[in-house]
């Protein structure tokens, strides 16, 4: 990746508690290039959203970045505080949240929410900002943008509201978008539209996208590369086709096996035994070893190997093996 928009190195997020320090994100590294969509998948609590919040500087205390570096557009941002960080939010890094029904302030017209965002970041007049607000709504496919600008959020459907949210995230033209489960709260029929919209807008502008989701279908549809997270660590990282068709980490393999596919017919879905360990009770060595069908002694002693040049699987005994369990 010659031109990385987002570059994360050894990022570690810690939450100090009475029972010791928890690490919801533990030493992850990846790059996202211009116009690239990196899908981040994993179970709930794997640290996907926490990593996204760390990048945009919205970790809720006491969670904090303990180690590592975050670079956006070549500038280091992980140590920025207060107003310096605020200027980057929206301007360099946009964010789309999960639930469009609750992401918009119910008491303000969407036009006002758009113009205030534009005015916060761009040096333009109010009338110019209003013009851009209409253009932004138009761009995300809201019909009659000029009139709808005066509507309140409750006057839109869920899918339309997510379009408004995307317009808000993109209106100051950030170079990176963090989309945190952008389709989870939507109807299935609307999901594909929203993903297609997000993808085409970012491709046209060259915006890098960090697409956080637990939906393998969304990943397959939208992502260029995919990062699989497990218990705060990267399990596997690679081009989406490779990871989805020939997973190398046993966890990814299990995850793929438990995704319903039309091609697989009515066969019983595979289930990964057990549950992801709690952060305060991580097993020694590779965190996945108690649930791994291929685990050996080494796995409980040493944490998985680092990902070689940001690709591959953090596993001592990557697939394929002779015997397929799933």
């Amino acid at each position, binding site marked *: 990746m010659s031109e990385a928009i987002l570059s994360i190195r050894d990022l570690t997020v810690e939450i100090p508690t009475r029972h010791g320090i928890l690490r919801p994100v533990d030493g992850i590294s990846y790059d996202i290039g211009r116009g690239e969509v990196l899908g981040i998948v994993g179970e709930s609590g794997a640290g996907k959203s926490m990593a996204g919040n760390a990048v*945009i500087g919205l970790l809720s205390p006491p969670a904090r970045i303990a180690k590592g570096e975050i670079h956006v557009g070549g500038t280091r941002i992980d140590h920025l505080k207060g107003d310096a960080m*605020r200027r980057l*939010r929206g301007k360099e890094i946009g964010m789309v*949240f999960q639930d469009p029904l609750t*992401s918009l*302030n*119910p008491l*303000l017209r969407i036009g006002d929410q758009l113009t205030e965002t534009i005015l916060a970041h761009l040096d333009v007049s109010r009338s110019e900002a209003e013009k851009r607000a209409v253009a932004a709504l138009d761009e995300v496919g809201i019909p009659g943008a000029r009139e709808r600008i005066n509507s309140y959020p409750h006057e839109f459907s869920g899918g339309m509201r997510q379009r408004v949210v995307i317009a*808000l995230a993109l209106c*100051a033209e950030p170079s990176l978008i963090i989309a945190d489960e952008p389709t989870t709260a939507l109807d299935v029929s609307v999901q594909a539209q929203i993903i297609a919209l997000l993808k085409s807008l970012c491709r046209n502008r060259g915006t890098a996208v960090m697409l956080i989701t637990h939906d393998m279908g969304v990943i397959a549809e939208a992502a260029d590369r995919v990062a699989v997270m497990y218990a705060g660590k990267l399990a596997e990282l690679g081009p989406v086709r490779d990871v989805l068709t020939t997973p190398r980490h046993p966890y990814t393999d299990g995850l793929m096996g438990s995704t319903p596919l039309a091609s697989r017919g009515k066969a019983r879905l595979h289930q990964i035994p057990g549950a992801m360990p709690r952060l305060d009770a991580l097993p020694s060595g590779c965190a996945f070893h108690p649930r791994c069908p291929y685990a050996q002694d080494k796995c409980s002693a040493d944490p998985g190997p680092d990902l070689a040049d940001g690709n591959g699987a953090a596993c001592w005994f990557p697939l394929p093996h002779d015997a397929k369990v799933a």
Partner: protein
Amino acid sequence: MLAFIIQRIAQSALVLLVVGLVAFSMFSFVGDPIDNMLGQERTQADIDRLRGQLGLDQPFPVQYVKFLGNAVQGNFGISYRQGRPVADILLERAPATLELAAVSGFLAIFMGIGLGVFTAIRREGFAANAIMSLSLIGVSLPTFLIGILLIYLFSVELGWLPSFGRGETVRVGGWTTGFLTESGLKALILPSITLGLYQMTLIMRLVRSEMLEVLRQDYIRFARARGLRERAVNFRHALKNTLVPVITVTGLQLGSIIAFAIITETVFQWPGVGLLFINAIQFVDIPVMAAYLMLISVMFVGINLIVDLLYFSIDPRLRADRTKAH
């Protein structure tokens, strides 16, 4: 919208009719005013003459309708004790109470909201915690005790401020004001703090808890993620969303500031309608009591009507629901 206003005004009229009935029934059921008005050496002829003069010999419904008709025209009869029209006495006393209530209400609303927002935003800070602890005094100490403590400290010990009365007043048209003289302003300080303290702390604690609730909402996170300034997030986005419940309580509290000025006026010998009412009770001056009751209920009903209308201007969702419902 218009239908709603008409509906609410009709309800208000009904409430006033009922209060009018209660106020009026005092004439018949709370002792015989004639006893008080004529001295020990009265004759039956005197009693009958006065009874006829005051219309007290007519049947109850006739008296009630007469009473209502007069009340609508602002005629509440003649004070049994002072022998002057009640309306005149009330008008004479009203400026004192209204000025006191206005200063207290202003103090309660602005200090209450300001401190509430402050303690919510800096909820970990020392100052915020100190304010919260002190506010317990305002909520839990009875008004008369606060008044007496203030008098003891600032009038008796320090001698800075007067302990009773309105100070010098200036007549502006039919209105006597204490705002224009130094002694008048000085005299306002202690009573208005006494009267407004409870309301201020109540509003403050309410604003704080509502703010804390709102600050957790997704749209606040999204507003931050769009890089809006903290001030815009806190006041434009968060505070506005706390206002509906705050206005409800504030409206009722403003009503009670006027209604319960009685205690403060008694402690500070403030020549307002509250003191008038207390004296009226001691002398069973029923026309004054009835008029006071009506006056207070008109204020409460009026404030409630304003509160209902404010909901509409703040929350667009209510407007939509109403239009659909009608």
